[in-house]
């Protein structure tokens, strides 16, 4: 069906795919597993026409296949179901299926052939056992049902190969079951599928073959029956921990910086309890959608908290706004730098000074002392080792990802936080900048700040943390201390539905 031959791809000089080769036979379901950053998404984007490879080629039924756009992939009968679905909530199911090209009853009439698209859509919906009429608005559907609409979209173009990118992350258990049943039907019809997922159990259950990617290369490719869970995890993990992580000499102190007891919020978090000590780096592991980022937002006061207590150095934080929590010494580096971390159009200095501004302000009218804020920004720039070539007045958007992240760190460090929640601190930044970020985290801890570090990269957590909490489905499933760090144990707790024995 489709064959990858030595596919290579680099971003900004970093090789993401290093000669990937494997083949999918017609009607086969192939699972693709690997840690974040292993290159799964890049590979699928190349297949789906969103990206072009730097080297290597793909063959579709023996013919060379090099899609330049998603439309070209569509013409080749390859459908891509993205994790964030590409649907219009304000349109009906039928319209979503045909928005790119509506059939008309005749060339003379400008109208949509509604009977035709309705019939076709009803047919497809019946196939998928979706109990809705074709005119139902997509915004009325649940996440899982929308997923099925995407599948219907794939069937509408008569796809021979469907790529699923993490389809189950936002689905309920029942919706997941339904999706799997439908995938089984698709397989019976001879449709080939590529299934990307972190849920290894699901992959084992669904797939005929499994391809394991690590650091942009295929490290395992075998029938599912020959790749038990343990073996898969071992292959995914593989690499030894390198000296990327700087040594920290200090130990956590006795005193508790952040005390979280029984924090719950319906359908988001369940009975979260942990203590973060002063000078401790506490990791939070878990898959995307496990509730780790949501927990951070609850702790920071951005999202509501239905039950439980949050205390910072003994002071109750419940009910306080983010602003009041910041005043009490909380800091929060968000996972989305562009949307919530920075004012991209604004100057570096203005971004860096934003959180600590009240400290530089005087008097009734809040005059900001330019001298003070400038001096503070200068010092903090040095501390985070922001690139010397960047001028203070330069817009943040002109910086590289790593330097942008340093600006975010700078703005929080200026306020001298007592507890720092950092969500995916090294996402999308290069190795050099990563090292700097790690060094800064260690420095913070050495000065007695409690750091809550959320990351999808288990390796990073193992290299940096004193303890790691593992989350799954809004709960803490396991707590691992440094002496017991074990990638397999952490992955297992994050992946399995059942709590580990």
């Amino acid at each position: 069906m489709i064959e990858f031959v030595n596919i290579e791809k680099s971003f900004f000089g970093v090789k993401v795919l290093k000669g990937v080769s494997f083949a999918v036979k017609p009607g086969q379901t192939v699972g693709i597993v690997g840690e974040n950053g292993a290159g799964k998404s890049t590979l699928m984007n190349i297949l789906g026409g969103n990206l072009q490879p730097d080297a290597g080629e793909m063959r579709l039924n023996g013919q060379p296949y090099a899609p330049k756009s998603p439309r070209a992939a569509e013409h080749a009968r390859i459908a891509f179901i993205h994790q964030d679905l590409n649907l219009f909530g304000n349109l009906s199911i039928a319209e979503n299926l045909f928005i790119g090209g509506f059939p008309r009853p005749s060339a003379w009439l400008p109208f949509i052939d509604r009977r035709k698209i309705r019939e076709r859509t009803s047919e497809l919906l019946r196939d998928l056992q979706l109990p809705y009429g074709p005119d139902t608005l997509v915004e009325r559907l649940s996440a899982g049902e929308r997923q099925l609409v995407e599948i219907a979209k794939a069937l509408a173009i008569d796809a021979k190969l469907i790529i699923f990118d993490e389809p189950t992350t936002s689905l309920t258990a029942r919706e997941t079951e339904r999706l799997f049943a439908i995938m089984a039907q698709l397989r019976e019809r001879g449709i080939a599928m590529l299934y990307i997922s972190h849920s290894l159990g699901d992959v084992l259950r669904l797939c005929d073959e499994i391809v394991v990617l690590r650091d942009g290369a295929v490290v395992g490719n075998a029938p599912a029956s020959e790749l038990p869970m343990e073996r898969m995890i071992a292959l995914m993990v593989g690499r030894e921990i390198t000296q990327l992580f700087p040594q920290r000499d200090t130990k956590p102190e006795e005193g508790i910086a952040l005390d979280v007891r029984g924090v719950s919020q319906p359908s988001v978090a369940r009975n979260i309890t942990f203590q973060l000590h002063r000078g401790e780096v506490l990791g939070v592991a878990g898959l995307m959608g496990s509730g780790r980022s949501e927990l951070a937002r609850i702790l920071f006061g951005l999202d509501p908290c239905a039950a439980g207590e949050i205390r910072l150095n003994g002071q109750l934080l419940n009910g306080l706004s983010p602003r009041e929590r910041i005043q009490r010494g909380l800091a929060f580096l968000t996972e989305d730098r562009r949307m919530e971390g920075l004012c991209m159009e604004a100057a570096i200095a203005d971004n860096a000074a934003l959180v600590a501004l009240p400290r530089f302000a005087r008097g009734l009218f809040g005059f900001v002392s330019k001298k003070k804020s400038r001096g503070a920004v200068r010092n903090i720039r040095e501390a985070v080792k922001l690139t010397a070539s960047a001028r203070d007045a330069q817009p943040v958007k002109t910086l590289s990802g790593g330097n942008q992240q340093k600006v975010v760190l700078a703005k929080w460090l200026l306020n001298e936080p007592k507890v720092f929640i950092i969500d995916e601190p090294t996402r999308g930044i290069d190795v050099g900048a990563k090292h700097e970020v790690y060094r800064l985290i260690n420095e913070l801890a050495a000065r007695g700040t409690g750091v809550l570090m959320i990351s999808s990269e288990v390796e990073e957590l193992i290299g940096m943390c004193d303890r790691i909490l593992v989350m799954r489905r809004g709960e803490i499933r396991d707590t691992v201390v440094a002496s017991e760090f074990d990638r397999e144990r952490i992955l297992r707790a994050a992946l399995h539905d059942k709590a580990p024995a």
Partner: protein
Amino acid sequence: MTTARSNPIGLRLLNQASLILFAVVLMIFGALSSAFFQPANAVNILIQTSSTGILAVGMTFVLLTAGVDLSVGSIMFVAAAVGGKLILSGWSLTATLVVMLAIGGLYGALNAVFITRLAIMAFIVTLATRYLGRGFGLRITETRAMNLPESFYEFGAARILGLPLPVLIFAVVVVLAHLTLTRTPFGRQIYAVGADLEAARKAGINTRWVLFLVYVICGFCAAVAGIVALSQAPAVSPGFGNNREFMAIAAAVLGGTSLFGGRGAVFPGTVLGAVLIQTIDNGLNILNVNPYLYPLITSGVIFLAVLLDAIRNRTLERLNRRRIFVEAETDQPNVKNHCDSSR
């Protein structure tokens, strides 16, 4: 799931807020005056609504793409001024009307070129062309009021199938617009573009062309609105059409069209909004209320409608909040969805 999910009645009421407001207004006026519910009065309301209604229909197209057109009042004026000049210099009524319509379309195309090609915000572009148009129109009319010949008045007073012509034109515009928006590929693409421009592009929609046509349609509707207004009072005054864009926007918004694009409809939405505004005027008139109070009451009702819409949006937002796991694993929300979608 959340409390509102298990009690969707509040949300359903909010969904129909403008209809409920309309019903309330009707009941109040009906209770206070027996003349209000006379059939003749209903026709009256429709005649009075037609010009603003047509304008609002065009505006709806633009608002659906998350744009705005502040120049429609000026378009009305330019079309009317040129048309007046032509007919006074002896052109036939038909030829004049055709030219007026063409002016509307061209004016819209001018707006569209600046917005789609030069990527300037619609707000600024149409603000500038609003000045340009007003100035141009005043130049043509030399700032004097222009009385149009009898033929225009006869045109307005004509009845076809017992319906006054303005109402008929309004109806035709509404039917065409409604069919375009709901039944044609172009119409559905307008909604897609308004909901998510980037996704629309990815889905292979020619987004520039869609945006272009939307402003042309809006300009065209403005010209039609100008013609209808002239047919009722055949004189072009220097203030003709001035500030009408705000009424048009208000009517569309009252009818549930969102300023952020992708949500709204000509029928019943915008029509209902326009009729509601006019009904309030008409009812207050019948009740002999001090005319100075009309704008206060109208804007009060609009404010109420907008506030209800904001509350509705917030409720929806809360319902759509991301969930990590399902409480008690009962899949209850799906069951609810089934009920909802069966309408």
